[in-house]
């Protein structure tokens, strides 16, 4: 069964603007479910979903699990530690064994770029990429888009600057593709040693100075700076990073307008973002988390073959939609 999104969700680069809009539109009704006392609809009743997490994750794993449970699917969590994966089982064998148990979907988080596609090419089950190496993290990209659209009422013409370690960031790639497809202007700002050498091919504006990015942008999506990058010598120190590239209240106050602040988390307070910005009035960091569950519900629903026009009905708890 081919869904409106295709068999799998591997990234935002292969999606069309219409498909992205569909996910965002479908997320709307699902968002409301999470506001209810009984946060459950029977839409995916009987579906089994495996959350296959080869990398540590709290937020994304829990967000997927809530999405699955609120749609009444049966999720099984597999973490790499303590599983056969740690005993040296290959990814392809893990996949085939899962498939032999007749599952419907796999949500995979893996440290290798392309791992989600590798899995999708080899199994019949639908695959959702929950982050593969430094490639893409499409549901994060979608929830960022939803958060921006909720706030501004549009994406077209919006100026969004992605700040920090773009080189190693799957969040950055998914954001760049998603935002550009939806008509937003995208900037990136960070030390050149943490930008891809080929950044010009991404159709973005590069800002060497965070001050310039702040003058330009409607919103900043501030990426987590991983400690390993400093240890690997990409930047000399976290202290200098904060002083040169950090998003601080002082810098934001010099902006011509209020700037919306996003962060995919987990945050390094005092490194890429100062606490008074993260907790400030223009931060939508917790809205992103809320939207994450809704966007993932929408993705699971659409991949399962749910019809977009029935999402409202599904919300009504009638159990229609999938396979209807």
């Amino acid at each position, binding site marked *: 069964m081919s869904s409106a999104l295709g068999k799998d969700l591997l990234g935002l680069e292969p999606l069309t603007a219409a498909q992205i809009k569909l996910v965002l539109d479908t997320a709307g009704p699902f968002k409301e479910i999470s506001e209810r006392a009984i946060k459950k609809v029977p839409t995916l009743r009987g579906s089994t979903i495996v959350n296959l997490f080869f990398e540590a994750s709290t937020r994304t794993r829990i967000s997927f699990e809530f999405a699955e449970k609120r749609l009444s699917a049966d999720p099984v969590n597999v973490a790499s530690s303590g599983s056969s994966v740690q005993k040296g089982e*290959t*990814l392809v064998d893990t996949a085939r064994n899962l498939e032999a148990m007749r599952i419907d979907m796999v949500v995979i988080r893996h440290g*290798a770029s*392309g791992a989600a*596609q*590798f899995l999708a090419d080899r199994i019949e089950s639908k695959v959702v990429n929950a982050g593969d*190496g430094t*490639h893409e993290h499409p549901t994060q990209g979608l929830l960022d888009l939803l958060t921006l659209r909720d706030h501004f009422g549009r994406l077209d013409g919006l100026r969004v600057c992605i700040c920090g370690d773009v080189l190693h960031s799957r969040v950055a790639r998914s954001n760049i593709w998603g935002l550009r497809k939806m008509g937003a202007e995208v900037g990136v700002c960070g030390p050149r040693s943490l930008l891809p050498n080929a950044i010009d091919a991404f159709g973005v504006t590069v800002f060497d100075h965070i001050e310039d990015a702040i003058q330009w942008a409607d919103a900043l999506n501030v990426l987590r700076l991983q400690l390993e990058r400093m240890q690997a010598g990409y930047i000399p120190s976290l202290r200098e990073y904060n002083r040169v590239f950090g998003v601080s209240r002082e810098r934001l106050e010099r902006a011509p307008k209020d700037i919306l602040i996003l962060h995919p988390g987990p945050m390094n307070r005092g490194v890429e973002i100062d606490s008074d910005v993260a907790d400030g009035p223009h931060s939508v960091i917790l809205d992103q988390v809320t939207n994450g569950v809704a966007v993932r519900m929408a993705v699971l629903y659409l991949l399962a073959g749910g019809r977009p026009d029935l999402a409202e009905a599904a919300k009504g708890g009638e159990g229609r939609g999938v396979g209807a």
Partner: protein
Amino acid sequence: MSAAAPTRVLLRGGRVVDPSQRLDLVGDLLIVDGKVEAIGERLGIERDQEGAFETIDCAGQVVAPGFVDVHCHLREPGREEVETIATGARAAAAGGFTAVCAMPNTDPVTDNQAAVGFVLRQGQRANAARVHPIGAITIGQRGEKLAEFGEMIAAGAVAVSDDGKPVANAQLMRTALEYARSFGVPVADHCEEPTLAHGGAMNEGVVSARLGLKGIPAEAEEIMAIRDILLARRTGGHVHLCHMSTRGSVELIRWGKERGINVTAEVCPHHISLTEAAVEGYDTNAKMNPPLRTADDVEALQQAVRDGTIDVIATDHAPHHYDEKEREFADAPNGIVGLETALAVNVTWLVKPGILDLPQLIERMSCAPARIFRLPGGTLRRGAAADVTVFDPTAAWTVDPRRFLSKGRNSPWAGQTLHGLVRATLVDGRVIHRTESA
């Protein structure tokens, strides 16, 4: 047949092309007792005499000196499940190669005279393409201490190389070039500046940035290429640059050759035919080191093969087990098999588009490699060992790795229809491979 009777083989009516003697004619090639006896438009042999010969009809085929591959990995000793010297030598014969040079990155490393002798003996037993061992530059290929070149060469090594790894230490490379000069063999270097290439899985560029794979910049190769060229200038030693992959390297080699520096270079069929775009979809059969580069690099390499800046085409045949390639891209090993597709890839991407004519292709695949590595073969001169390849330069066939004689199946051309098909391969006048049908 009595033991004393001479064996005569007649390759009849082919287009005999031997760039080593500027020969290109339609006629017969007569082999007597394993050596080339005569080439002529009609050797005065009447049809009724043909019973005295083993005759191979070569009408419509090209008859050429056998191909010589100066760079392949036969995996024995150590990884016999992936390839053995016997299966590699038979795969070579199927690809029209009459001689191959086996790189020493085996387990244990071919870094001493006994190990060289082993490779040589296994090659003789294979009774297929000739196998010439290459000895390691450093003990264990650890890049620390020179291996015993003199003894390895006396035992049959034809060159020294740490291929698979660069010689990172410049002083050591300098000494290797000087020391190898004493024995008249080339030092074949895998040009890769290790700190720049570290952790890289493909060419650094737009595709690597999009796919989120760590890139290997062209400069990782070019920095070592120019270092080696300058050390060859300093020492007078012969440096042979393996598997060149970038436009910059071509320009540096050209610079060196214009100054009379003793540098030769090779390119692989995959680098003149494929670009980094083949990695899309994370296809591990497009993963090799050096990586597939850009269309601009491919164009520069094709031009360099044509004008002679690149001397030879070598396969870098690198078989891997199916399981090793069936995994996440970053973790998959580098390399593809190439012996059985080299001719067809070269014909399809160099000859058909008119970049090389057939004599030029044969020069790059046979004459030049034999000459540069001072190997027998690469010629059909009278009295030379009759190492001959007969091939159909236009026949189309579809690559099916399951039919390879190599144990390796990792080919980026699987399922593609290519042109140029080996019909027969002879070593010392004996047929070691024949393809009956495509």
